[in-house]
C-alpha cells in the first residue's frame, strides 16, 4: 500500500477492494452480534468468554476501515492479477462441480458424487474427453475411498458402489486368511 500515490494523479476508487473492505466490516458486525449473544455468567467476571471476541471485533473493525481507505486510494490488487481476465466460465463449472458433490454425496455415496465432480472440474479446466475422465475419476475416487476408509479408518458414507466393493474385498481378505 503506497500512500505516496496521493500526490500523483488523483487515484481512482477500486470497487472490488472496496467491496472486500465492506464485506470485512460486515463480518466484524457479525462478530459483534455473536459476541453480544454469548451469555456471561457473573462467576467469570475476570476474563469471561467475551473478552477475546471483543478484541477480535475491534481488530477487525479497524482493519476493515484501513482496507476501505486503501480501496478509496486506488486499491492494492497486484498489476499482474488485474491484467489477467477472470475466466468466469471455468470457475463457474468448477463451482458447480463442488456444489454437485456436496448435494449428491449423501444420496449417491462418495464414489459416485466424486466422479461427477471430477468430470465437471476436468471440463472446467478445458478437458474435452469426458469418458476418459469418468474412468480416471472412478479409479481416483476408489483409491481415495479405500485409502481413507480402510487404511486411515475414516468412516466415509458408503453408497452402492462402496458397499458392493467392500463386500468383495472383505470376502477376499477372509479367503486369504483361511
Amino acid at each position, binding site marked *: 500500500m503506497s500512500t505516496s*500515490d496521493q500526490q500523483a494523479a488523483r487515484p481512482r476508487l477500486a470497487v472490488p477492494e472496496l467491496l472486500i473492505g465492506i464485506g470485512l466490516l460486515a463480518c466484524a458486525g457479525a462478530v459483534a452480534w455473536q459476541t453480544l449473544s*454469548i451469555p456471561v455468567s457473573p462467576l467469570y467476571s475476570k476474563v469471561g*468468554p467475551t473478552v477475546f471476541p471483543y478484541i*477480535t471485533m475491534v*481488530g477487525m473493525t479497524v482493519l476493515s476501515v484501513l482496507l476501505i481507505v486503501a480501496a478509496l486510494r486506488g486499491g492494492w490488487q497486484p498489476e499482474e*492479477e488485474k491484467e489477467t481476465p477472470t475466466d468466469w466460465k471455468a470457475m463457474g463449472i468448477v463451482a458447480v462441480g463442488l456444489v454437485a458433490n456436496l448435494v449428491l454425496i449423501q444420496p449417491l455415496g462418495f464414489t459416485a458424487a466424486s466422479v461427477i465432480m471430477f468430470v465437471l472440474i476436468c471440463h472446467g479446466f478445458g478437458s474435452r474427453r469426458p469418458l476418459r475422465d469418468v474412468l480416471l475419476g472412478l479409479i481416483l475416487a476408489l483409491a481415495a475411498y479405500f485409502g*481413507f476408509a480402510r487404511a486411515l479408518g475414516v468412516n466415509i458414507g458408503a453408497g452402492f458402489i462402496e458397499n458392493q466393493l467392500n463386500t468383495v474385498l472383505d470376502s477376499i481378505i477372509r479367503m486369504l486368511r483361511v
Partner: protein
Amino acid sequence: METLGHLAHGFSVAFTPVNLMWCLLGTTLGTAIGVLPGLGPALTIALLLPITYQVAPEASFILFAGIYYGAMYGGSTTSILLNTPGESATIVTALEGNRMARSGRGGAALATSAIGSFVAGTLGTLGVAFLAPVVVKFALSFGPAEYFSLMVLAFITVSAVLGSSSVRGLTSLFAGFVIGMIGVDLQTGQPRFTFGMSQLLDGVDVIVVAVGLFAVGETLYMASRRYAGKDEIVPLRGSLYMTAAEWARSWKAWLRGTLLGFPIGALPAGGAEIPTFLSYAIEKKLSKHKEEFGTVGAIEGVAGPEAANNASAAGVLVPMLTLGLPTSATAAIMLSAFQSYGINPGPMLFMTQANLVWGLIASLFIANVILVILNLPLIGLWVRLLKIPAPQLYAGILVFATVGTYGISQSPTDLVILSLLGAAGCLMRRFDFPTAPVIIGMILWPLAEAQFRRAMTISNGDWSVFYKHPLSLTLLTLAFIGLVGPHIYAYVERRRLRGPEHVPGDA
C-alpha cells in the same frame, strides 16, 4: 554432551523397520507433493491428520516430518524446471534456477539445490538438536503471562512483519481468530460464534480450513486464471554431476544460506521468504560471476537460497517443539496433530515425550539422506510427475480434498464450509492476502486465550502482569516495534526521499 546421548536414543527409535518405513513413505510423498504444483505440505499433512487416531505418535510425526522436509526438496525441482514456484519459499530458487535450466544447466541446478538442501537440512537438524535443549531450559521459567506475550509477538511477526502488507496480513490473522473461536468455550462451556447451529458446536476442524483455503481455493484460482500464460517445462538437460568449479561456487553459498536460514527460522517469526531473499542478495553481491545473474543463471543464486530455505524449515521446528509456537501453516497443523494425541508441545515435551522428540529429530537426519537419494538419481521420476495435465491434477486434488473433509464427520455442512472457504481462498489469492496467518491464527488464538486467562487468574485480575514481568514486557515491546516500526521507517524514508526536487509519481 547430554544431547548426543539423547540423539543416540533417538536413532534407536527411528531405526526400527516400521519407523524407517514411515520415514521413507513421508519423504517420497513429500517430494511428490512438493513437485506437483497446487499441493503443499500443509494441505497434505492436514489431509493425513486422521492417521493420528491409528498409529503411535512417533510414527505419525516421522511421517509428517518426512513430508515437511520432502516438500522442500520437491518444490525446488518445480521451480527450476517449470518456473512456477510451488511455495513462496522457492520463489528465489526459480529466479536463477529456471534460467540455468533454460541455458542447458538444469542438471547442475538440480544437483546444487538437492545437495545444498541436504547440507542445510542436516546442519539445521543438528541446530535443532543442540539449540532445542537450551531453549527448553530457558522456557521452563516462562509463566502464562510470558507465553501470552510470546504468542502476541508471533502473531505480529507472522502476519504484519513478513509479507507485502501488514494490514492484509493482520486481516488474514483475525479471520483465523474468528474461525478458531467457533465452538464451545472450553473454560465456561458457552457456545461462541455458532450462529445457533449445532453443527458448529464442535468448532471448525483445521482440516476443513486448510483444505478449503489451499486445495479448493487454489483450484478455483487456477480455473479463474486460465487466460494467463502457461509455463513450459524445460526439458532436463546437462549432467547431474557438478564440475569442480560448480562445487567451488556452491559450497560457500550453502553454508552462508544455512547460517542465514536457521536462525531466522528458529526465531518466533519463522517464514522462509526473508532468509531466501537475503541469501540471494548476498550471493549476488559476493559472486565473481555477477554477469550470470539474471542472464544465463548463476549457480550461487540457486545454492544459497535453497540452503536458506531448508535450514529455516528446520529452524521452525525449534519454537514449535520447545514452546508450542507454530510459525508456519505446516507447523500449525503439526501442532494440531500433537493436540489430537493430547500432547502439549512445550518445554515439558522434552521430558515427558523424550522418545517422540528425539526419535523425530533422529528421523530428520535419516529423511535428509533418503531425500538426497530420492532427488538426485531418481530425478527423472519426479520430472514425469510435472507432466500430469492440469485438469486431471486439480480434479484429483479435489477428490482427495473432499474425502478428507467428509471423513471428519460425514456431514455435508463441512463441505459447505469447505466451499465457502475455497471461495474466500481464491479471493485471497487474487487480492494478495496471505493464507498462512489464517491457519496460525485459528490454532494459536485459543491457546493464547487460555494463557491469558491463566495469567489473569494467577494475578487476581491484575492486568499489570503483562508489563511488570520484564520478559513479558520485552516481548510485547518487540511486538509493538514489529507492528509500528516498518511504517515509521517507511514514513521517514519517504520524507527523506521526497526532498524539494520530488517528482510527482516517482515514489
